[in-house]
């Protein structure tokens, strides 16, 4: 009986965690999906995420409007995307090297400007209560959902639909799959990639603002702990499909909530081990989903890792 209650608590906590923790994963992986669909890899999204967290928090603190902070975080991400997109179109520039450089640049500059914001409290994003019907307080708490999560869900659906049913969707896929074909159609390949990388940066910046403005909800230097990088790995796992990105982000969120959930029912042994669950899962998924004999299915043909 006690065991069952414990299990229910853990599952509920993981469910709540999936919703709470998944949002940054979701935004970054959607942004990366869009960028990779256009044929570039932006490894710099970790830096964009951290910078988004810092700038969103700072703007929210100064203006008192967390939503304005989210917007500025997104715009900051757009600038990072533009830098990446511009540098990568120069001859003999490798997108992976630029991505790593921008990742370090983004985190560095965020730490530099962020020193002043570690102490002060900024207004946080509100959440919507979907749990008003429930008796159980922990269910009610689990159903406190941030609007950004819902926006991310709609964004995933919109991207999935848009890649198939709109002109820009077909243009992005064409550019990502075969640059010669795109050129033959008169598509400006560099411009499409620049815009896709900028849009991807915007999403990643918004994802970062969620970290500092909602959960965990304050600006610290260890805030991201590599979530931006894992979200890039998640895109491969999700086979470049926005809907799978959503599912994968939930899965990662749930895995991330495993440690705290176990602790809440008194299992504290192996706390740090369970906290590492998302990272272990990343490794296991990568091992399970790749094969030396097979090329990645669904990978855009122009990506520098598949070429």
């Amino acid at each position, binding site marked *: 009986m006690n065991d069952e209650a414990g299990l229910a608590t853990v599952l509920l906590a993981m469910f709540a965690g999936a919703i709470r923790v998944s949002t940054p994963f979701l935004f970054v992986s959607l942004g990366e999906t869009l960028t990779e669909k256009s044929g570039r890899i932006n490894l710099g999204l970790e830096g964009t995420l951290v910078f988004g967290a810092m700038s969103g928090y700072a703007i929210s603190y100064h203006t008192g409007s967390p939503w304005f902070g989210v917007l500025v975080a997104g715009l900051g991400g757009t600038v990072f995307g533009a830098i990446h997109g511009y540098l990568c179109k120069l001859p003999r520039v490798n997108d992976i090297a630029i991505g790593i450089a921008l990742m370090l640049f983004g985190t560095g500059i965020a730490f530099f400007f962020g020193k002043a914001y570690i102490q002060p409290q900024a207004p946080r994003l509100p959440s919507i209560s979907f749990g008003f019907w429930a008796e159980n307080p922990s269910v009610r708490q689990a159903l406190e959902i941030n609007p950004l999560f819902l926006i991310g869900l709609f964004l995933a659906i919109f991207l999935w639909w848009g890649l198939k*049913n*709109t*002109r*820009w969707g*077909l*243009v992005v*896929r*064409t550019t990502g*799959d*075969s640059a*010669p*074909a*795109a050129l*033959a*159609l*008169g598509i400006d390949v560099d411009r499409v990639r620049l815009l896709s990388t900028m849009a991807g940066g915007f999403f990643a910046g918004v994802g970062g603002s969620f970290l500092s403005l909602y959960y965990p909800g304050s600006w610290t230097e260890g805030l991201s702990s590599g979530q931006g990088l894992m979200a890039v790995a998640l895109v491969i796992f999700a086979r470049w499909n926005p809907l799978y990105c959503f599912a994968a982000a939930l899965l990662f969120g749930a895995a991330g909530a495993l440690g705290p959930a176990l602790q809440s029912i008194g299992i504290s042994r192996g706390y740090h081990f369970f906290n590492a669950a998302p990272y272990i899962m990343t490794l296991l998924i990568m091992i399970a989903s790749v*094969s030396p*004999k*097979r*090329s990645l*299915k*669904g990978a*855009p*043909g122009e990506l520098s890792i598949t070429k």
Partner: protein
Amino acid sequence: MAVLQSRPEGARRAIGLETIGMTKAFGPLVALDDVSIRVRPGSFHALLGENGAGKSTLVKCVMGFYQPTSGSALVNDREVSIPNPKAAHALGIGMVYQHFTLVPSLTAAENLVISRADTPAVIDWAKERKALEAFLETTPFKVPLDMPVSGLSAGEKQKLEILKQLYLDQSFLILDEPTSVLTPDEADEVLGLLRGMTEAGELTILMITHKFREVTAYADEVTVLRRGRMVGSGKVSDLSIDDMSRMMIGDTAIRESAARKAHSGEPLKLEIAGLFADDDEELPALEAVNLKVRCGEILGIAGVSGNGQSELIQVLSGQRLPSDGRIFIDGKPYEPERKLMDSFKVFGFSEEPLRNAAVPRMSVAENMAFRTFDKVPISPFRGWLSPSPMLKKARDLIAAYRVKTPSTEEPIENLSGGNVQRAILAREISGEVEVLIVANPCFGLDFASVAEIRAQIMDQRNRGAAVLLVSEDLDEILELADTVAVMSEGRITYTSPMDRTDRATIGHAMAGHH
């Protein structure tokens, strides 16, 4: 149909094209020298010439990819300027490239819709489908619309490329070697349908080719280019194949193909037994392939590309693990490892050597030493290289195989295609060869190199080597092979001694009619 409505009714009529004194220089290199051709409306015109003769440069000038250094283009007798490909499209000139320009992960329908200039921001697929089906009714070509292009056969892709141009309402089509990836039957079907459309006055066609058979069977007129100059043109009916080939090759000395030495009762050398392998998608690529090659025999494997030939070559050369099956040489089990290749004297070379058999940025000498660098004299002690024997050997080979290179130290990627292939050939067949595995050895080379390489293969056969030749060029198989085997969908579907079969029978087997 949005596309067709944008032009007046009856606008889909063949147009004529003319170039006057077209010249294109890239720095000091004159790729195209004062070329004037005239393609009448509604005609099927062939542009003949070997690799590097300037055919592509000419059509790229016409398509607006290049700006000619001098000269002009006329459409329907009016001078036009073609600053970019868009301008060419606006004039109704479309091109079907040798390499497909379709987007592999998009479906045929998506490829067609995105190719349009006026693709709507949000695509109403129900409406587009109806329009596409109505359009397909008006053409003789049929292609499945809902499959990703990567899943289509080469013939279907080629038809889709042509359909795309028709869908864009182009009435002058330039086809660049349109049949190089098709079976003879597919080629006949596609060219026959296009021929029908020119006869109906709907289309004018300019086809780049080097196959005389296609010129004589389908073209009305022909223009021949050699080294950037126009060396002849006229009605196909007035010219013999001999005339055309003399125009094309000029007085370049072509090595006579070596005489085939008669062998009889030679022992079995190479045996492939029940070979299975998967492709990169983990789908079966080879299924129960059994082949036997005797000493002094060339076994030619014909087939349309993508039917498992490249996987077979990869397995034989150690680039891919078979999932089942064995390889035997002289009745002993053989694995494609460096040591066993060496002791059984297995060598080979293939198309695009810069991708498959050479390290592009290493020097010619280093590339030529790949088989011998770990042996005496180049490596006198274990692990140590001695450069002077390596250079000496490279110099000898360069002289013996007439490789044109500035020095032994030149990165091999700077050599011309024919010279890279000669350098690799020198490496592979200068020693004692008992088994030779060759894949599309002459792909993309000029006549002189082709003749040289084929003669060398024949020499090896005459000296008693067992030769396995995979080729997508049926003429090459017909010229070289003693025995022909046809590969279709990963299986050997037909085998016959060469003297008991013919082009048509092999062609049918390639198309899967067996």
